[in-house]
């Protein structure tokens, strides 16, 4: 894992001191809310429905045991005993008091964490593959490059006041587990025909009210031009992005309106200019960063066999573990989606337990996923049963990764001041409905995602089944979408038709999944069947007047 050097620590400590002074001045009246608001937002402090909410950055989703432990302690000490892991691989606290915020940032700084650039029109937390450094299907560990981008984008003076927020994702695996093409810039590290490693740049993706899949604008940028090319992409956006209309200000609108070809032409022109400016950090710096991400000391000669005589454990192994690059190891996902629970929430005790488990079983490392789960990236297969027993005892062993009960849900109207409808109760009802009789297992992989408003924090556009909560004359209403995907086969879900109330949306999903079960070909996922059959039969089933 990356460890701060003196510069990193000094920057974060200075920011804590600045914010402590700003908060003091706000509370004594020296600063108005108008002046203070952008300052608190630059430190991740929002005012939500019930209280202040603090969003803490988890760079590319990676946490040490000590960091995870402090996240649990903050939940107890300053919040109401829990935290919420988000679809941006971050964590949010929902009940923060303004007077405590500087102390929280100071606690975070002690473990090399902060909340800087988790809000505002700047480059946000860099996201990445939760299996980075552990999976066999990547060509290189993407995290050193994500870290380089983090350092470049932190306090970058040119990009702190962009037309809108800006999200970058870096992956290096064949399988996209990070919704890469639904970011403002998606970078896939690739190998060319000559065997050289470089970056494929996808620019202009995103969800929100105008979802778009990022087009490929350059199939191969040499790795030693990563920062310069990123800077060129940002510069063209910063120059031409719409600042007159918030709803047209994201880079996806610029790329769409200019056309990918013209946007690319301008980026290449800017890139040619920037190459004369010596912007790229020396390769020695990248090499220095990469040393922090060297493989842990994997043992050799470990057994690959796992005793699967316990059926519940066997199901968890089948569902929640993935192939590791090192023999005798597995990648284990801790589901934060207990049936009937709140997606992404974890109690302070659970967070501290996950810290202990990462220390004891995963080289002191864990990852936050965009699907609001936690990954232990390096677990010896011979330790899986002991790990599972401890997770089971803490309510963290739900075996539902990527099934219909592993629901991504934004906080919705239960917490969020932007939301139009509640997301969490809908997620709970769906999970309870499909967990009954283990119907979720029968359905197989089925990614269901719920957003409580058009801003799409719950990624509904990318759900095999998506749900969008809207305000219909003062009451909650839910639109159903089908056919989205955030993976290698990225697609945007389409609305089925008129919306439903809370019970109606659960019934509609029941009907859609019944059709899938009746029509699926061997080995077809829900998404595959939808793509083969198209919307029409699903729509007919969903809106049928016949009893289900």
């Amino acid at each position, binding site marked *: 894992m990356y460890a701060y050097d003196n510069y990193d620590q000094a920057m974060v400590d200075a920011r804590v001191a600045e914010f402590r002074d700003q908060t003091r001045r706000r*509370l004594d009246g020296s600063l108005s809310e108008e002046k203070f608001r952008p300052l608190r937002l630059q430190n991740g402090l929002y005012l939500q429905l*019930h*209280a202040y909410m603090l969003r803490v950055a988890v760079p590319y989703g990676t946490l040490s045991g000590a960091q995870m432990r402090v996240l649990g302690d903050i939940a107890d000490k300053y919040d109401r005993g829990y935290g919420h892991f988000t679809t941006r691989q971050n964590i949010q606290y929902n009940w923060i*008091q303004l007077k405590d915020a500087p102390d929280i940032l100071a606690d975070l700084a002690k473990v090399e964490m902060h909340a800087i650039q988790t809000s505002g029109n700047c480059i946000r937390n860099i996201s990445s593959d939760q299996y980075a450094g552990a999976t066999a299907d990547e060509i290189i560990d993407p995290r050193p490059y994500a870290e380089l981008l983090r350092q470049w984008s932190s306090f970058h003076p040119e990009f702190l006041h962009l037309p809108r927020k800006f999200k970058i994702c870096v992956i290096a695996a064949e399988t996209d587990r990070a919704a890469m093409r639904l970011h403002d810039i998606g970078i896939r590290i690739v190998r060319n025909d000559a065997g050289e490693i470089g970056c494929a740049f996808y620019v202009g993706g995103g969800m929100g009210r105008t979802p778009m899949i990022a087009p490929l604008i350059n199939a191969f940028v040499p790795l030693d031009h990563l920062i310069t090319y990123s800077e060129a992409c940002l510069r063209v956006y910063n120059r031409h992005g719409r600042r007159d209309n918030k709803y047209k200000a994201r880079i996806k609108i610029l790329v769409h309106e200019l056309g990918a070809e013209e946007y690319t032409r301008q980026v290449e022109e800017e890139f040619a200019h920037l190459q004369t400016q010596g912007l790229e950090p020396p390769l020695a710096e990248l090499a220095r960063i990469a040393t922090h991400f060297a493989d842990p000391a994997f043992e050799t000669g470990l057994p690959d066999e796992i005793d699967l005589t316990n059926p519940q454990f066997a199901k968890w192994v089948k569902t929640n573990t993935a192939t590791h690059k090192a023999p005798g190891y597995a990648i284990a996902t801790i589901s934060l989606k207990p049936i009937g629970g709140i997606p992404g929430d974890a109690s302070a005790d659970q967070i501290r337990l996950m810290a202990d488990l990462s220390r004891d079983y995963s080289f002191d490392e864990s990852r936050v996923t965009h699907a609001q789960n936690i990954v232990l990236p390096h677990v010896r297969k011979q330790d899986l049963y002991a790990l599972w027993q401890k997770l089971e005892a803490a309510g963290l062993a739900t075996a539902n990764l990527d099934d219909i009960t592993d629901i991504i849900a934004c906080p919705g109207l239960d917490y969020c001041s932007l939301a139009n409808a509640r997301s969490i109760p809908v997620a709970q009802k769906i999970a309870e409905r499909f967990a009954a009789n283990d119907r979720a297992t029968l359905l197989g992989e089925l990614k269901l995602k719920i957003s409580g408003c058009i801003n799409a924090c719950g990624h509904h556009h990318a759900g095999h089944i998506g749900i969008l909560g809207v305000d219909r004359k*003062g*009451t909650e209403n839910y639109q159903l979408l089908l056919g989205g995907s955030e993976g290698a086969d990225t697609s945007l879900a389409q609305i089925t038709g008129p919306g439903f109330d809370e019970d109606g949306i659960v019934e509609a999903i029941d009907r859609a999944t019944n059709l899938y079960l009746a029509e699926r070909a061997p080995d077809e996922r829900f998404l595959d069947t939808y793509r083969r059959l198209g919307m029409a039969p699903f729509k007919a089933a969903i809106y049928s007047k016949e009893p289900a």
Partner: protein
Amino acid sequence: MKIITGNDLATGAVVWWTGTEWSPHVDDAADTHDAAPIIAAEEAARRVNGAYAIDASQTPEGIRPAHIKDRVRALGGPTVRLDLSLKPADPAAANWVL
């Protein structure tokens, strides 16, 4: 009726204007038709943040904000964690929001 709500500046807690001070309970809210000077004075005094006036109605069960968002705020916590709300002992409290 018109009532005023906001968040306590220091704690962020949801509060309602009673006519003389701020209360965490919506039922304490006063019918207030000239909200602007009150909001300006209270924000200037740093007692509240982000205050705004809303429509509400007086019902047999108490004061009911017109919009669901403000009813969620009046509950004092999420409908899915009533233990964190102002009515932790009422299992049906979420129904009032809907």
